[in-house]
């Protein structure tokens, strides 16, 4: 099991290194997806590898960038990679118009794209309960499918799409199984490792990931471990990017244990399956317009994030919530106060850690988490 974990950790730490090598070995096409909601199943059904673009420190020179320093890490990082032609080995980029920063990034990608490279803006509705959202999204998905078919000379049959959906559903189900194991015994796997496992699934072929995930589950089921008196908490946020191992480790080192999360490299990525019967395109539409986890980037969603988190806390018998907010993520910044007020009203304490591109003093963050945990401990006494 340790071997499996170490392999997945390695991929999560150096996704681009892994992918370049994978491409060399397999010679297949790779499509980079900007976070967060590209229906990767369609790309898979077209016979290519969909990859969620990640923030990395693998090869960034931090020179003058075409993205100002007051943008979030993932946007700056991908912006720099595009500018420095570090993603030229990919065969295309899809952007789901997540927020205005990602939209801008997609613009930059389009302006710098090479001859023959695929680029598509999949414009997903923001106001997801509008009556007009459903037909519009249907048309956008049809266009996405058609451009993939045109550009790469393939045909995406419904049958193939259903098969791809099956592959993705299976992978998500396996990951949720690990989540269930962690909920019952949080000492089995650290938050950093679990998030790395999810991240690896965003990068590598789902089929291969599922094989490893099965092995991992086997190992975890046999593992003996105890979280002792660690305080159980839920992690929320870190939209679009992995919060880094350092942050996740320091939270647990401070004396708590993570029992549930809605992180993008976590619960948010694996929560919603697609129906395998009926019209697969309709299933994709349905998933987007009925998000399981409310998202700060959507409006008029009906349900709100605070209520979702209250349920998550209760289901996992957690004591509190730690929000991870990516520095300069304005949608999350603006959504968060309402969610944390909701938690307050329900008597669930929460705190915020802002995560930065170049992480500041880790010690300071640790002290704040410790103070929060002391408060939680006093609460339960």
């Amino acid at each position, binding site marked *: 099991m340790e071997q499996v974990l170490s392999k997945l950790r390695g991929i999560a730490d150096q996704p681009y290194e892994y992918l370049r090598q994978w491409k060399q070995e397999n010679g297949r096409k790779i499509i980079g997806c900007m976070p967060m909601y590209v229906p990767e199943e369609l790309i898979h059904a077209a016979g290519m590898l969909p990859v969620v673009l990640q923030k990395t420190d693998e090869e960034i020179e931090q020179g003058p*960038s*075409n*993205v*100002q320093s*007051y*943008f979030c890490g993932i*946007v700056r990082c991908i912006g720099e990679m595009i500018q420095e032609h570090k993603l030229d080995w990919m065969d295309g980029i899809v952007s789901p*118009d997540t*927020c*205005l*920063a990602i*939209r*801008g*990034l997609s*613009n*930059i990608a*389009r*302006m710098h794209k090479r001859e023959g490279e695929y680029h*598509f*803006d999949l*414009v997903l*509705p*923001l*106001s997801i309960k*509008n*009556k*007009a*959202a459903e037909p*519009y999204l249907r*048309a956008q998905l049809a266009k996405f499918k058609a451009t993939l078919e045109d550009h790469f000379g393939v045909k995406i049959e419904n049958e193939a799409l259903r098969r791809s959906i099956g592959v993705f559903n299976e992978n998500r189900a396996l990951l949720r199984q690990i989540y269930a194991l962690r909920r019952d015994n949080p000492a089995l796997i650290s938050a950093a490792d679990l998030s790395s496992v999810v991240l690896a699934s965003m990068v590598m072929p789902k089929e291969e990931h599922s094989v490893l995930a099965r092995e991992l589950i086997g190992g975890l089921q046999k593992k003996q471990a105890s979280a002792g008196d660690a305080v159980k908490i839920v992690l929320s946020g870190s939209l679009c990017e992995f919060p880094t191992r350092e942050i996740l480790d320091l939270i647990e080192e401070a004396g708590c244990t993570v029992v549930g999360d809605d992180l993008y490299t976590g619960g948010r990525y694996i929560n919603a399956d697609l129906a395998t019967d009926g019209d697969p395109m309709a299933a994709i539409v349905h998933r987007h317009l009925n998000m399981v986890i409310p998202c*700060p*980037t959507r*409006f*008029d969603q009906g349900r*709100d994030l605070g209520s979702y988190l209250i349920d998550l806390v209760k289901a996992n018998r957690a004591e509190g919530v730690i929000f991870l907010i990516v*520095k*300069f993520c*304005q*949608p999350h*910044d*603006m*959504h*968060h*106060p*309402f969610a*944390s*007020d909701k938690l307050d009203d329900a008597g669930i304490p929460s705190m915020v850690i*802002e995560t930065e591109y170049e992480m500041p003093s880790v010690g300071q963050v640790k002290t704040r988490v410790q103070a929060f945990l002391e408060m939680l401990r006093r609460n339960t006494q």
Partner: protein
Amino acid sequence: MTQDAISSLVRRLDTAGQTKGLMKRYYTDLRNSREEGKVMAWSYGPVPFELMRAMDIRFAHLESYGAYLAARQGQAFLKELAHRSGYSPDICSYARLTQGVHMMAQSGDTSEVRPELLIPQPDFLVAVTSCHLMANTYDFQQRQLQKPGFCIDVPFMNKWADFEEAVAHVKRQLIDFIGFLEEIKGHSFDYDRLKELMAKVKEAAMLRAYCIKMSQTHPAPMTIFDHFICLGPMHVWRGTNESVEFFKQLKAEVEYRVENKIGAIPDEKYRLYWDNLPIWFKVGRLSDKLGSLGANLIAGVYTHTYFYSHEPEKIDLDDPVGSIARELCWITWAFSNVEARTERIQKLCEDFQIDGLVMHSSRTCQPMDIGQKDMVDAIEKRLGIPGVVIDGDPTDPSYYSDAQTETRLEAFIELLASRRR
């Protein structure tokens, strides 16, 4: 709008001075909407005011109101209220002022504001997603106020070929929004009234477009700051006789200047383009500084794109809803698509014989900033026109430095001079 001491060097337009009275009347009407039995909305982003006006609904434009209050009572207390509600200083400064307005109402403590500046709580809320951040503010406040809400989604357009599809999508939502308004008001929508209103929008927009075009002459009769100040009549006042009258007067005044070769600044040597929103609290000082260097800011993507400034003659009075949808999509197209925005800048540079670009990189307005470097590079390559980036913010002075900005502008004008030698 918030602005600092009136410039001494730039020749002010008499007509521009009238916006003050108009805005005062607008806010008085809003304040009295309860007593006068009117339905009132809070709105966010470039909302279709026309549809609400046609239903005799009064509308506060919350981000403008936040800035208006800040100009009269200082912005510190509004930002403090936003901060206390959990809004970080990285958030769009307009959104923070807007949130401050809401939090003040929530707290019930309005002692910081003179009573005549207060507005009532809304009957419903409406937003447009052209700026996601204002839509976020809407989303928060709508959930907290538990009042009916409608959010019109204007999609991003990757290429011009997507434009008509986007217009159809927005038009469909506008029709749904009309249904929403009918439910609120309990009577059906008056399309004839809308048609009359749109005729006035069209007339005012064409007058305004004419005034904008007048600056193609040398010396230019107006500065970009005049255009900023003259937005009010095309914004919350559009569709009214007052708006049409205002632009008639402005046209006469601008024509007089052109005939008599009176420039907005005494000695126009350099004609500059301004990118992004204004730095409201430095409008006077910046125009003086540039004026003293012989430079006038003539054109800008914000003033020359928004507010029906693009092809107003094409407003179709037989399809007013479609024309509104078209305007909303045009705004998003010209702003959010970096290539479209670059082309727009190029066109303005050519039409107005621009010598240089001043790119306001506005610290908390990410959507307007991203891609600015690529735009400057593209314009330099295509037209040989250089650009300078200055750091600022529409309403938050903590992100602005006089010394740094002015040094940069001086160096930039020096560069333009050396290129001429």
